[in-house]
């Protein structure tokens, strides 16, 4: 156990941990909302996120991000954000329509919904990983080589954004980390307010608690579910953009590990609980970073899985308890 390293770098480790955690939180939002409304673990949400990272990547590439600076760069980044949110949302909606709606209509048993989710997750990931072959089938592989090449390995936009480091109370932190944390919290507040105050948001909460009564009160169940997936997708898109800012690299299978961690975050905070998703994400990010410093980076992922199992065994309702609609047994 590397105590010395840990204590010497505690503030920096914590800030970076919070940044990772913020990203987990944004992805966790999708898991927690869908589970709250449908009691369904949306396995494929990790791919919704992954597609967002590629949208951001491609936007930056297409608009010449590597050579830009100043306001032009900011503009390109803004476009990347929009692209990520748009693609993630689109994938999320398509997912709902194709893989889940037929099952929801039929009140299919849990295992079957899980199977569909897993299958969809594989299909989406593989399509991205095989995009060079897919493009070749349309004869477009040469024109699009920059985008579809290197399909099975890391794709990066390293060096596009050179973020200044700031000095916060004697600790050197990356401004990107600060940006990530602030953005995530801001987005969570926006969604939280939306769910609390808007008509659609109330419809979501009502459907989560009692779908039949909600529909009898005029809440459209199909629209509600779509809205849930849409919000989750948009937030995953934001997470994807921030992820690319921070990590600068992506790959077709980047979704799985992040998805599991985000799901852990959702459960940690209390599945169905939006604020829980934020708290869970931040706690997980920090715990993971600390664990990584104490035990060595190879054990980083084990921390997440262990935390998941421990919570499910000892406090399945999570830190803030289940909410949205009492996630039913």
């Amino acid at each position: 156990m590397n105590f010395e390293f840990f204590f010497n770098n505690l503030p920096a480790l914590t800030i970076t941990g919070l940044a990772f955690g913020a990203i987990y939180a944004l992805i966790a939002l999708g898991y927690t909302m869908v589970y709250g409304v449908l009691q369904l673990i949306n396995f494929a949400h990790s791919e919704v996120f992954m597609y967002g990272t590629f949208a951001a990547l491609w936007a930056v590439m297409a608009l010449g991000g590597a050579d830009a600076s100043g306001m032009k760069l900011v503009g390109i980044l803004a476009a990347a954000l929009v692209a990520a949110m748009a693609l993630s949302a689109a994938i999320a909606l398509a997912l709902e329509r194709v893989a889940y709606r037929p099952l929801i209509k039929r009140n299919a048993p849990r295992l079957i919904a899980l199977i569909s989710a897993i299958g969809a997750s594989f299909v989406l990931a593989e399509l991205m990983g095989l995009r060079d072959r897919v493009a070749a089938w349309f004869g477009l592989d040469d024109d699009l080589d920059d985008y579809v090449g290197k399909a099975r390995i890391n794709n990066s936009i390293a060096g596009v954004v050179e973020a200044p480091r700031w000095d916060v109370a004697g600790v050197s932190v990356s401004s990107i980390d600060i940006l990530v944390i602030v953005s995530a919290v801001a987005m969570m507040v926006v969604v939280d307010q939306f769910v609390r105050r808007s008509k659609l948001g109330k419809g979501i909460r009502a459907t989560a608690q009692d779908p039949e009564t909600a529909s009898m009160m005029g809440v459209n169940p199909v629209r509600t579910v779509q809205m849930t997936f849409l919000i989750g997708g948009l937030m995953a898109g934001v997470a994807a953009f921030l992820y690319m800012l921070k990590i600068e690299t992506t790959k077709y299978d980047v979704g799985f590990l992040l998805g599991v961690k985000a799901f852990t975050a959702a459960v940690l905070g209390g599945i169905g609980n939006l604020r829980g998703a934020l708290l869970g994400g931040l706690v997980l990010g920090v715990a993971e970073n600390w664990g990584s410093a104490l035990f060595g980076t190879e054990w980083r992922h084990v921390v997440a899985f262990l935390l998941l199992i421990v919570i499910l065994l000892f406090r399945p309702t999570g830190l803030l308890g289940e909410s949205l609609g009492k996630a039913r047994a």
Partner: protein
Amino acid sequence: MSKFKLPALSALPKPVKIVLWVLVALLAYALPLLEPPFITTPGVDFGGVLFVVTMYCLIALGLNIVVGYAGLLDLGYVGFYAVGAYTAAILTSFHANWPLLLALPVAVLASTISGVLLGAPTLRVRGDYLAIVTLGFGEIIRLIAVNTEWLGERRGISNVARPPSLGGTEGWFEIPHLYWGDGSVLLDTQDTTKFLVFGVLDQIPYYWMGLTVVILMLFADYLVKDSRVGRAWEATREDEDAAELMGVPTFRFKLLAFASGAFVGGLAGALYASRQNFINPDSFLLLFSILFLAAVVVGGQGNRWGVMVGAVLVAYLPQRFREFDDFRVLVFGLALVLLAILRPEGLFPPRRTVRAKQLEQELEVLEEGTEGEEDARV
């Protein structure tokens, strides 16, 4: 009994049935020797493929107990498989030099214990959560193997002991394979399998070993299913609360299902390690847990013959059509989604599910009026 059989055949007298089954079994043993044209796998050793198929069948039967009979969502079955494999590997190669036959029971015991240890705290949680916890377990096992030097880390463990051969390196006798030339079938005395030598090149003896274990497992499955234990599993799956109130100690039986599944999984893992002669953490990815589950769900959970069909599909097809290897996972994922939407009960569901479904469809036809109205409103 939930056997997949054509209705006419099940009316035959018992002795005739037994003879038929024996013939089928003999055909199965002879299959790799016969080298039938469309079935053999080009470019890959057919015997080896068949061995993998038997391992998947074994796993499917074990997972069927957990998922199909007891109704527990398990996404981490590969963990038990890994415990069995690593135990066999450590005992016969990495840290000791036990013969395989001595290491096997220990490997199986280890996996069973891991099943009990995993199940005891987790079987109390809700269905979805159980799935995630088991997934976490499978991944933790793999990550421990990756990060622990004592388990070989990423390099893995090699020189895992093979099963003991009968008759030294030359065996007792040699069995020739068939050769399908242009238009004629010949006995090829150059292409033989030594009985019973577990060597490096010829995979067929391993297949025979695997097939025998599968046959024994089928018997065991039938004996246990047609008893108080099998009934308790079914009742627990159908309505756990009602079952408990009818005097079924549901938690104990769920744990028993888990342990039984772990037993079988560990056995498959140890046998696989023995043939493979080398294991590393990449053999135990989450992907395999999903593949195993798919075999069970696609085949027809709850039906021992159905899940074996599923195992054959999942294990054999990718080897038969190797040129599409890159698309394996994609096709697989598509198959899962289509199955979930179009035929969730699987290709060969247990007979009672078929009858229940027919009743459900009849009721749906009667209620068709109401459904139409609901759609219009939305």
